[in-house]
């Protein structure tokens, strides 16, 4: 394998193939507090070995513990472990145990074997929407559109009118109104904004004439977006001031766009891809890096913590999605995952048109740095999409994140602040919301006027 140096500004390198692993993070969501299995999950620190972990379990009275190391290729046979007190997954540093109350309290108070957490085992479901929801949303959008045609609101700020409910108008998306982008005099001129995602539809007519630097960090794929996610995020953060035939949906319409493709056309990427993209954006002196990606891992990753810190030292602010692993309607607030749970990386939550926390928007994670920093519009967000569809309306903390990064670009232009100072400016100027800070941090990002 060859060595590639990535320290020069213009250097960019294709990444040698890296093994893809099956994702167990996004796509599943934890169920409510009531939906537990009765078993408990014990999470161990990485530093100690398996022997210490198993010893800690046995010290708490769980004598019969099976280990995934006992099976070929760690393909644990569940039927062979049914009678065990617990099963230890050595690669994960996690055990699932059946414990009596006395054993449970012994585990929770144990200082042996590096036990980080003892948590009820949750029942997991594949993420899906209730049947008929799409139809109802479509119906509602149709009614909203009809109202707008018959009695245009002309971009009146709903909050200023005494209600807290925004909606798309003929002129602006609801998100641009809620963040005061619609009245801002700033354009992001002179600011380099990198979106590390699935690439960009370089043929999109709304971006003709823009300054775009595109680089793929996915072996065998060009920067051209084959998914749509990246094109949607770039649309929100950097879309045009006056798109022809539709409302304005983009924020920093004069920023220099840096497209770093770190997720492939199937929406998958690894640390290798992502770190290469961050390195490229930092080396190119991008002031703002927007990362609408995450893995549902609670523990802070040292690499992203350090990388975020070093990016700040180089003048680059990394803004990341909090994650969509909440299911609040059934009592599960979720948690901020990697990389947004790093202290040196901003975490963005999603709010809806009533400025309520989105059902899927993850809550602050108790690890140091795992807090939500700010919120952005992230429900029914209208933005650019792959041609020929051209536009799409979707939800997610992935959509809230480019609202924050676009506003960061406007604030960077207006104040000259970068890195930690820009972070402070974003939070200082955010509109406080009457919601727990663990859900929305300092509040809704606000553009300079």
């Amino acid at each position, binding site marked *: 394998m060859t060595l590639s140096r990535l320290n020069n500004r213009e250097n960019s390198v294709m990444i040698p193939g890296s093994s893809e692993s099956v994702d167990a993070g996004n796509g599943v969501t934890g169920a409510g507090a009531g939906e537990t299995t009765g078993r408990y999950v014990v999470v161990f620190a990485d530093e100690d070995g398996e022997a210490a972990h198993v010893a800690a379990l046995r010290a708490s009275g769980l004598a019969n513990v099976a280990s995934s190391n006992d099976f070929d290729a760690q393909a644990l046979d569940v039927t062979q472990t049914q009678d065990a007190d617990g099963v230890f997954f050595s690669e994960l540093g996690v055990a699932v145990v059946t414990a009596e109350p006395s054993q449970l309290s012994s585990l929770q108070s144990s200082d042996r074997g590096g036990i980080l957490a003892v948590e009820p085992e949750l029942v997991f479901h594949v993420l899906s929407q209730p049947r008929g929801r799409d139809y109802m949303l479509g119906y509602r959008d149709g009614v909203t559109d009809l109202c707008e045609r018959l009695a245009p609101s002309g971009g009146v700020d709903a909050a200023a009118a005494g209600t807290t409910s925004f909606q798309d108008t003929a002129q602006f998306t609801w998100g641009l109104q809620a963040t005061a982008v619609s009245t801002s005099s700033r354009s992001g001129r002179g600011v380099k904004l990198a979106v590390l995602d699935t690439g960009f539809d370089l043929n999109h007519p709304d971006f003709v004439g823009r300054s775009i630097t595109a680089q793929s960090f996915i072996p065998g794929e060009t920067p051209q977006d084959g998914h749509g996610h990246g094109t*949607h995020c770039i649309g929100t953060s950097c879309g045009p001031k006056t798109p022809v035939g539709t409302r304005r949906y983009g924020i920093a319409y004069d920023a220099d766009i840096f497209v770093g493709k770190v997720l492939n056309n199937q929406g998958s990427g690894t640390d290798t891809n992502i770190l290469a993209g*961050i390195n490229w954006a*930092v080396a190119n002196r991008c002031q703002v890096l927007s990362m609408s990606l995450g893995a549902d891992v609670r523990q802070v990753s040292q690499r992203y913590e350090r990388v975020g810190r070093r990016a700040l030292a180089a003048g680059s602010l990394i803004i990341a999605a909090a994650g969509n692993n909440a299911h609040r309607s059934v009592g599960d607030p979720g948690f901020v995952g990697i990389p947004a749970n790093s202290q040196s990386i901003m975490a963005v939550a999603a709010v809806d048109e009533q400025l309520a926390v989105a059902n899927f928007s993850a809550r602050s994670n108790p690890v140091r740095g795992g807090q939500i920093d700010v919120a952005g519009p992230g429900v029914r967000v209208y933005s650019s999409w792959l041609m020929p569809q051209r536009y799409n309306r979707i939800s997610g903390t992935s959509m809230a994140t480019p609202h924050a990064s676009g506003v960061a670009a406007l604030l960077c232009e207006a104040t000259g602040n970068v890195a930690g100072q820009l972070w402070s400016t974003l939070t200082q100027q955010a509109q406080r919301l009457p919601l727990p800070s663990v859900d929305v941090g300092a509040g809704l990002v606000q553009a300079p006027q």
Partner: protein
Amino acid sequence: MADITVTVSDDHLASIDEVAEVLRDNGMHVGQVHAALGVISGSVPDDRRQSLEAVDGVEAVEEENTFQLPPPSSPIQ
């Protein structure tokens, strides 16, 4: 063999290439050296991983994460 990311400590950032050389001597297949960030990507046989953690200037050796978006048709992204 595991794909890994090595985080280099602050006091060895300037000599990251030397750290990479020592990692290679200790059995790591070095893929990329990200000098701007102080991280090195690559892979290592399972039985050599511990020796990497002992290399001077190495702050952390962590296994690679995979990040996965929902399919384009998903209403929540």
